[in-house]
């Protein structure tokens, strides 16, 4: 019991300290996505929304359990992504893309990438920290 309480306290402390972290999502993402899991999404870009305060990427999935579906990826704000070295031309419709996302807890075709490596047409891009 004491151990569980300690774990809770440390977990809460971690939450407090992590709050002003490097990535920002004004509505919160931890409750929507598994932050401790990563899945690889491969497919073809259909749309890239470069918008505040969230950008989003839409992919027609070509492999894996979501094959045949249009997968949505929640991205960061343009300002944060620019600071990470991304641009509004990061993705074009028709690009082949491989992206590692935190998957939706609801099991839907949605994932989150607030700071992840992507491969676009065979070229890898890592976010600048």
């Amino acid at each position, binding site marked *: 019991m004491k151990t569980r309480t300690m774990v*809770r*306290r440390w*977990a*809460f*402390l971690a*939450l*407090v*300290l992590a*709050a*002003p972290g490097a990535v*920002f999502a*004004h*509505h*919160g*993402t*931890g*409750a*929507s*996505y598994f932050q401790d899991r990563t899945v690889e999404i491969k497919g073809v870009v259909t749309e890239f*929304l470069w*918008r*505040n*305060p*969230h950008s*989003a990427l*839409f992919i027609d999935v070509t492999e894996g359990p979501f094959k045949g579906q249009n997968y*949505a990826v*929640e991205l960061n*704000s343009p*300002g944060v992504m*620019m*600071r990470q070295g991304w641009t509004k031309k990061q993705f074009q419709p028709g690009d082949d893309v491989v992206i590692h996302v935190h998957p*939706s*807890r*609801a*099991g*839907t*075709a*949605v994932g*989150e990438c607030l700071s992840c490596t992507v491969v676009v047409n065979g070229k890898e891009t890592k976010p600048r920290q």
Partner: protein
Amino acid sequence: MRTRILGLSSFIAVGCASIALAQQPAASFDAKDLNGIWGRGGASPSAANQVKADARGFLPDGGLMTEWGPSSPLTPKGLAQVNANKSGKGPRQVPPAFANDLLGDANPPGLLRALVYGRPFQVIVLPDKIVQLFEWTRVWREIWMDGRKPLEDVGPFWYGMSVGRWDGNTLVAETTGLDARAWMDQWGSPFSDVLKVTERWRRTSKDNLELTMTIDDPVMYAKPWTTTPRNFRFQTKDMPDGEMIEVIFAPVDEQEFNERVRNPAGGAIAK
């Protein structure tokens, strides 16, 4: 032998350099010059020692762990409001698709939430007022320094009505009239329309600005309480936050994002 002498020389050199650095005077600064861009510095380390909340953020004395630190005990109305506020962040978080956070529909965050969020702000000190420009949602607030008294029965304003004065080297700003539909932080910590906030801003060094607030809201909290000191760091041009950028929530964009990403991510609607 030669190696030993070289080693000893290096040790002495490093030691002297360390002493010289330690003896350097602190960079001079004007404590009342708050001009510039200030970025995230986080809560002070002492905040970690105060954490005694349970998994839902409640303290043993009936208070609430907020992003501003531990509150005084909640009133019954305060407790009811905490349970009514569904946030996508913090210890009581729910998927944003099921939250009732007004920000999720691109409404203003309001003053307290803008201060705690961690995006940079710029301070401009003018003869009769101090202007604070927030990068987050690209808004500003004014702290009137022309001797006027705090106004009662004003608002509701998302960014309140603020009157300030210097108490030594501390800028003291009293804010009233805040719109209680906003939250105090990202975690859904509440306040009411009778809230009086007393901010104390202190430039503790050339690079650091400290904010401590007194929260006086007898509707939500049993007695006034003081926030954990929060630090902001001076941003120079070469820093990531050295220039503020446009971060505007446009409802038209937010609505599309919610329909196509946020809600299906939470399982709120079939995608």
